[in-house]
């Protein structure tokens, strides 16, 4: 199932569903990179609250995605990693170095607000 992507002001919100296949994930990656340009979005929230597994392929893809989106001039934050998913990732040896994370959608949007005003602060 294609991950639904919503536009909310200057941001995009992608809500990952539980039965996420590798193809869905790659599709989301491509959709986001394209939509960031189309909507001139400043930030992207990837909400993985519904996800019960974040394996090595998903971790790698999310990392790649965060870097690519940064190269497109936007910020990405992953929200909603469940406690047991976080522990499983760590025990498997997976990590998301250099990728921003926040508790949930609200915190994620707040983080993006801070991050993007940071850019603007140094601009002026």
């Amino acid at each position, binding site marked *: 199932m294609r991950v639904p992507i919503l536009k909310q002001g200057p941001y995009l919100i992608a809500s990952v569903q539980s039965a996420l296949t590798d193809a869905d994930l790659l599709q989301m990656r491509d959709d986001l990179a394209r939509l960031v340009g189309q909507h001139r979005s400043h930030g992207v929230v990837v909400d993985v609250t519904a996800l*019960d597994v974040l394996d090595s*392929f998903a971790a790698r893809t999310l990392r790649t995605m965060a870097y690519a989106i940064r190269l497109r001039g936007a910020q990405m934050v992953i929200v909603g990693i469940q406690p047991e998913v976080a*522990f*499983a990732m760590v025990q498997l040896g997976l990590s998301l170095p250099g990728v921003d994370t926040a508790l949930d959608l609200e915190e994620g949007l707040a983080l993006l607000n801070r991050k993007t005003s940071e850019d603007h602060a140094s601009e002026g």
Partner: protein
Amino acid sequence: MKDEVRVTIKSDVDVVAARQEGRALAAHLGFSTGDLALIATAISEVARNIVNYAKQGEIILKVAEKDGRYGIVVVARDQGPGIADVARAMQDGHSTSGGLGLGLPGSKRVMDDFDIVSEVDKGTTVTMKKWAR
């Protein structure tokens, strides 16, 4: 509850099916939420390896019992190209496909037992076990 569940692995959709079946069986056996995530992740890793490296194969999920304790057995089996250097494949970060190379060693870390038998041109069988606490 069936004694054994078999999931044919041919594509990424089957990887999702295998980890969902595994999680359901493990939940039935009374594993904690934390362990369910570990089991589902390990299944995801070995199932994806079948798709990536052997094109097709199967995941077999079984119940183990010993001294009144229950466990889950996960067998990932394929007749793919096999692994020439198993010790190397088990090292953190070793990947022949640009992956993270954490699937096999990571799965070993999170399961109680992990066994891998592989023969070049014959195929690979990974057998993992975890006991409910």
